[in-house]
C-alpha cells in the first residue's frame, strides 16, 4: 500500500486554491466588518466628538499612505501578468516594489502613532481619560485598534509575498503554476480594500 499517497495524488488545482484564498478573504472581511460595525454605531452616536477627534489626524500622511497602497496593488497585479509572459525578472522587480511600498506604509504608520503617543494619546492614557470626551476616547480607541489590526495584516501580506518571491526565484511558481502569486496578490488587494475604507472614515471627517 502506498504511504501518504494522497498528497502526491492531488493534482495542482489552481481554481481550488483560488476559491480557498477568496474564502479566507471573506473571513478577513467579516473580521474587520465587526470593527466597522462598532465604528459606524459609535460615530452615529457621537458625531461631533468624532469630528473633533478626526481633526487630530494628519490627512496628508493618510492620503500618501492611500496612494502608496493603491500603487502597490497595481504593481502586484502587474506581476501576475509578467509571470504569465514568463518575465521572471520583471515579476521579481514588481514584487520588490510592492514590498518596499508596504514597508514604507508601515514606517509612516510608526511615525503617525509616535506622534499620537507624544501628544499623550494612547489607549488608557491619563491624558485621554482626563481631557477627552467619551466620543473622542472611542474614536482613538477604534483608530488604534483598526489601524493596528490593519498594519498586522500588512505584515502578514508582506510575508506571503516574500514567500511567493522565494518560490518564483526557485522556479516552483511559474506561468504554469501561478496560484501562489495570484493568491498572494488577492490577499494584498484585500489589505488595500480595507484601507480604502479606513482612510475616509478616519481621515476625511471634517
Amino acid at each position: 500500500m502506498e504511504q501518504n499517497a494522497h498528497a502526491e495524488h492531488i493534482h495542482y488545482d489552481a481554481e481550488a486554491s483560488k476559491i480557498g484564498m477568496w474564502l479566507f478573504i471573506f473571513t478577513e472581511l467579516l473580521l474587520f466588518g465587526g470593527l466597522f460595525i462598532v465604528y459606524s454605531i459609535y460615530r452615529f452616536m457621537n458625531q461631533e466628538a468624532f469630528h473633533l477627534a478626526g481633526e487630530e489626524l494628519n490627512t496628508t500622511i493618510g492620503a500618501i499612505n492611500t496612494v502608496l497602497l493603491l500603487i502597490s496593488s497595481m504593481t502586484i497585479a502587474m506581476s501576475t501578468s509578467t509571470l504569465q509572459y514568463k518575465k521572471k525578472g520583471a515579476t521579481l522587480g514588481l514584487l520588490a516594489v510592492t514590498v518596499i511600498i508596504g514597508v514604507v506604509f508601515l514606517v509612516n504608520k510608526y511615525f503617525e502613532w509616535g506622534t499620537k503617543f507624544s501628544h499623550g494619546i494612547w489607549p488608557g492614557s491619563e491624558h485621554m481619560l482626563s481631557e477627552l470626551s467619551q466620543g473622542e476616547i472611542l474614536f482613538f480607541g477604534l483608530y488604534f485598534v483598526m489601524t493596528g489590526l490593519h498594519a498586522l495584516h500588512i505584515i502578514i501580506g508582506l510575508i506571503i509575498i516574500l514567500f511567493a518571491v522565494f518560490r518564483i526565484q526557485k522556479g516552483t511558481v511559474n506561468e504554469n503554476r501561478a496560484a501562489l502569486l495570484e493568491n498572494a496578490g488577492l490577499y494584498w488587494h484585500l489589505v488595500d480594500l480595507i484601507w480604502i475604507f479606513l482612510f475616509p472614515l478616519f481621515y476625511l471627517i471634517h
Partner: protein
Amino acid sequence: MNKMQKEHAANEANYLTYQGKHKGLLGWILSTDHKRIGLLYLYSIMTMFFVGVLLGLAMKFELLAPGKTIMNPQTYNATFTVHGVIMIFMVVVPGLPAVFGNFLLPIMIGAKDVAFPKLNLLSWWLYVLGVFLVLSAVLFGNGVPDTGWTFYAPYSFKTGTNLLPAIFGAFVLGFSSILTGLNFLVTIHRLRCPGMTWTKLPLFVWTLYGTAWIQLLATPVIGITMVLIALERIFGVGIFDPALGGDPILYQHLFWIYSHPAVYIMILPAMGAISEIIPTFSQKQIFGYKAIIASTMAIAFVGYLVWGHHMFTAGMSGTAQYYFSLLTFVVAIPSAIKVFNWISTMYKGSINVQTPLYWAASFIFVFLIGGLSGLVLGALAANVHVHDTAFVVAHFHYIVFGGTGFAFMGAIHFWFPKIFGRMYDKAWANAGWLVFFIGFLTLYTPMFYLGMMGMPRRYYDYLEEFHGGNILSTFGSWIMVTGLVIIVINLVRSARKGPVAEMDPWHSKTLEWTVSSPPPVENFDEIPVIAEDDGPYNYK
C-alpha cells in the same frame, strides 16, 4: 468489484491498520487522512464532552437543594461558565462536522480526501491548542472564569478571574472551525466525482455545505469580539465600557451575530444525519429532497438575521425588538418543513427498527419540543417573563443536546460499522438509548415548568417552592448519565471485539456503503462515476 473482492480488499491494510511514514501514535496525530482526523476529533470531542458532563452533574448536585449544597456561589459561577465554554466551543460546534463531516464527506462525494488535507490536520491541532488554552484558564491564574460562556461586557473586562487564556482559547477554536468550513466548501465545489451533480449530493453533504458557510462567515465576528475584550482587559481601550462612552449592548450584538448562527452550525449537520438515517431505515426515497435543500440554505441565511432575540430585555429599541421577533418566527418555518419531510419519508416505508432509528425518532420528538419552546421565547411579551430563567436552559438543552446530541448518537451508531468495521451490540445499544432518553426527559422537562414559575438561571440558590422540580431534575441527570455510560461502554467494546461488519449492513444507497468496512486508505480504487438515473436515495 464483486463482494468477495471487496471483502478481500478489506483484509488488506485499511485506514485503521496501515502504517505510513510515521508509526504508532505519530501515524495518527500527524496523519492527513481525513478518516483518521475524523477519529482524532471523535476522541478529543468525547473527552471534552465527558468533562462537560461532570461539570453539569456537579451543577445539578448543587441544585439538589436550596442554599449551598456542595459549592459556594463563586464556584457555581465558574462551573456553569466552563461547562458552557466546553460544551459550546469544544463539543457541539465542532461536533458533527469535525467527526462525521471529516470522515464521510470525501467518501460521500467520491473523492479520495478533502481539498486541503494538511490544513485539515492543522484544524485539529488548533482545536487541541484551544482546549489547552481554556484549560490553562481553569488551572492557572487568579480564578476560573465566572462570566458565563457569553463573556458579557462590562463584567468580562472587570472580572479578576483568569479570562485572557479562555478568550484566546475561544479565538483559536474559532479559527479551527473556520479552516474546517473553508476546507469543506472547496472540497464540495471541486472534488465531486463525475456524475455527482449538486442535485445528487446526499443531504448530509448539503448540510455540511450550508454549515461551512456559517462557520466561515460568522466565526470571524466572535473572533474580533474576543480580541476587543482582550484589548479592553490589557489596554483599557474603552469600546464597551460605559464609563468611557462604550455600549455594553453593542458587545451583545457582536457576540450574538456569531453565536446565533453558531446554533445553526450545531443543528444543520444534525439534521443532515437524520436525513440520511430516516430514508435508510424506511428503505424509501426521502420526501421532498429539493425542499430539504432549500430549507437548509434558508435556515443558514435567515439564521444570520435573528440574533437580537437573545437580547430582548437588554435595552434595544422597540423597532429592533419587533423586527427580531418577526424574523425569529420566520426562521422556524424551514425547520418545520424538514420535520414534515422526515415524517412523510417514514410513511408507508419499510421500517427497519434499529438503534439509529430510535435516535432519529426521538430526535424529532425532542427537537419539536425544543423548537416550539423557542417560539415562546421569540414572542416578546412571553420572553420578558421567561428570559434568564430555567425555561431558557430547558429550551437550549432540548434543542442542542436533544438535537445535536441525539443526532450525534444516531450518527455514531449508523456509521459505526463503516468506521470501525465492526457492529455494536444492538441490545445494549437500545437499552442505553432508552435509559438515556428517559433520563434526558426527566432532567430537562421540569426546567420548563420551573422557569415559568420564575426560577432564575445561573443562580446557585433558589426559593423553596422550586425544590421538588429540582430534585426530579437532578435524579434525571443521574439516569441520563447511566444511559450514557451504557452507550459508551458498548461502543468502545464493540469497536474492539464486536462482530465483523459487512460493507452495507443497513442497505443504504450513499457512496460510503459501496466501500469496505472499514474503508481503504484512499477510499476508492477507482473514482466512481454516478449514472444519470442514480441517486443517494434510490430505493426501489
